């Protein structure tokens, strides 16, 4: 059995700074695996362990994602192999274009049974690539999945909707988007890290025609709702009363 995990490599948002003119400075932000994708990788690894499957990570981005350390990081999270398209024309693709390139990779990995995706990427959180990819591959898909049971030729998933939990049967091959609660992402240990460097990595040449459906008009630091920030020691005289009065006034 073969499980693909579609994941994103992007700048570490902890190190994104706001420049004086309000623009975002990514210069100190190193490439990392998008955090919710790590949960998808962990789930894939656990499923694979239970049924003896191979787990292949697939990803697309600019040449910056072809970074030795981040590739090892991804491979230390339960993947057996990694296949990527790293091309500067693939920087900040929208979900439709991303799905097109991931399709190129998935078709090369013919015979895949299941593709797992994270809940949403750390930058856009669009929650669209799973569905776009499923559409391009002609496969069924389900999102919001909190548990997966492998069965013969299909999977039975629990998914969390806004007001209910659904149990859904999906025939394989399928694309599934999982929530972070599906599996706690491992803190990669020594064994994982040392093995990572020996696992196969393939960088494919981009063979997909890209079309952009979305144009970015501007990116900047958010307009701050300026708040009063009146901070008091709770024990200070009349502090509680003051805040209680403000609450009453607001209601």
């Amino acid at each position, binding site marked *: 059995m073969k499980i693909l995990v579609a994941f994103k490599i992007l700048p570490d*948002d902890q190190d*994104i700074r706001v420049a004086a003119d309000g623009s*975002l400075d990514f210069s100190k932000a190193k490439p990392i695996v998008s955090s919710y994708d790590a949960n998808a990788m962990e789930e894939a690894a656990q499923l694979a362990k239970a049924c003896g499957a191979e787990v292949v990570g697939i990803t697309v981005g600019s040449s910056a994602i072809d970074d030795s350390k981040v590739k090892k990081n991804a491979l230390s999270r339960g993947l057996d192999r990694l296949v990527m398209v790293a091309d500067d024309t693939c920087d900040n693709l929208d*979900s*439709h*274009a991303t*799905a097109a390139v991931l399709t190129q990779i998935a078709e090369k990995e013919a015979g895949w049974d299941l593709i797992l995706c994270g*809940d949403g990427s*750390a*930058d*856009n*959180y*669009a*929650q*669209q690539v*799973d*569905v*776009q990819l499923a*559409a391009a591959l*002609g*496969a*069924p*898909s*389900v*999102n919001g999945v909190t548990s997966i049971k492998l069965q013969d030729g299909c999977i039975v998933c629990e998914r*969390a*909707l*806004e007001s*209910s*939990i*659904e*149990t*859904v*049967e*999906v*025939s394989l091959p*399928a694309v599934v988007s999982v*929530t972070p*609660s599906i599996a706690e992402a491992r803190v990669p240990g020594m064994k994982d890290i040392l093995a990572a460097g020996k696992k196969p990595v393939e960088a494919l040449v981009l063979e997909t025609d890209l079309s952009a*459906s*979305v144009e*970015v*008009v501007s*990116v*900047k*630091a*958010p307009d701050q709702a300026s*708040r*009063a*920030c009146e*901070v*008091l*020691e*709770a024990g200070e005289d009349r502090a509680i009363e003051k*805040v*209680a009065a*403000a*609450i009453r006034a*607001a*209601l």
Partner: protein
Amino acid sequence: MTKAMVIAEHVDAARELCAGARSLADEVVLVAFCAAPDNCADRVAAVEVPSGCALDDAYATLIPFLEEEGPEVVLVEPTKRMKSVAGRLAAYMGTAVITDVAALEDGVARGMYYGGVGQRDQRPTTSCAMYTIQPGVFAECVPSGENQVVVLDWVAPAAALKVLSTTPIEKKGVDLTKADVVVAVGRGFGSAEELQVAEDLAASLGGGVGCTRPLAEGADLMPAETYIGVSGLVVAPKVYVAAGLSGQMQHMVGCAKSGLVVAVNKDKNAPVFKQCDYGLIGDVATVLPALTAALS
């Protein structure tokens, strides 16, 4: 004649998005997976999902309808299943959905970037513009329309999903997205007993209790559906009490539009104190009961 299509599964969302659609286009068509609100669209297609079928698979029914109608704009409610349907339609149309739009002006959609670290304005470049829209964006608009009925028969896709069971989530307590008061709890609370003071404060004000991600997932102290933040609830109550939480961006974007924000934390350095109107430095175990008493 410009046309806007609205796709929604809840009445409130349908109404608000139809109102927004009316402000954007001459003709409004609603695809509803719920009862249609009165007088909100020119035409309403109510889609009934057959038992055992998944709403997500409605795309097979809607694709021909979308092609036929050819709207310039599609506004979709941002629920999990609606996002799935929207994505399938977008894939068919060769475009991408712009998601979780917080403001829309002249086709330019504003949304969060990196979980709130930035904000980004985007514009679709294809002839059919598709958006999922956050609640409140079209709150000021007014819906109208004759609601002429259109019948759409369910078309099942190949490899249809089978819904084996649906269990409603017992929403204990208040709908946080509608409450006037929300008390949010974070890692400063270590046990279920400790949460009582937050529940008491919320109850005294007729509000509800929400939480940050660690309490909904790792610590498992609060129900998952009360998690406020990126990938969770977005609330805008009149009063938001951020209790025992540090104020990380990923949580605060879920409550940034609240009226009055009061933070309580024993750590003077907690980032939440830079994002509140009033901050009280102290232990939630003593401060919350003191507030409850002062408010009674």
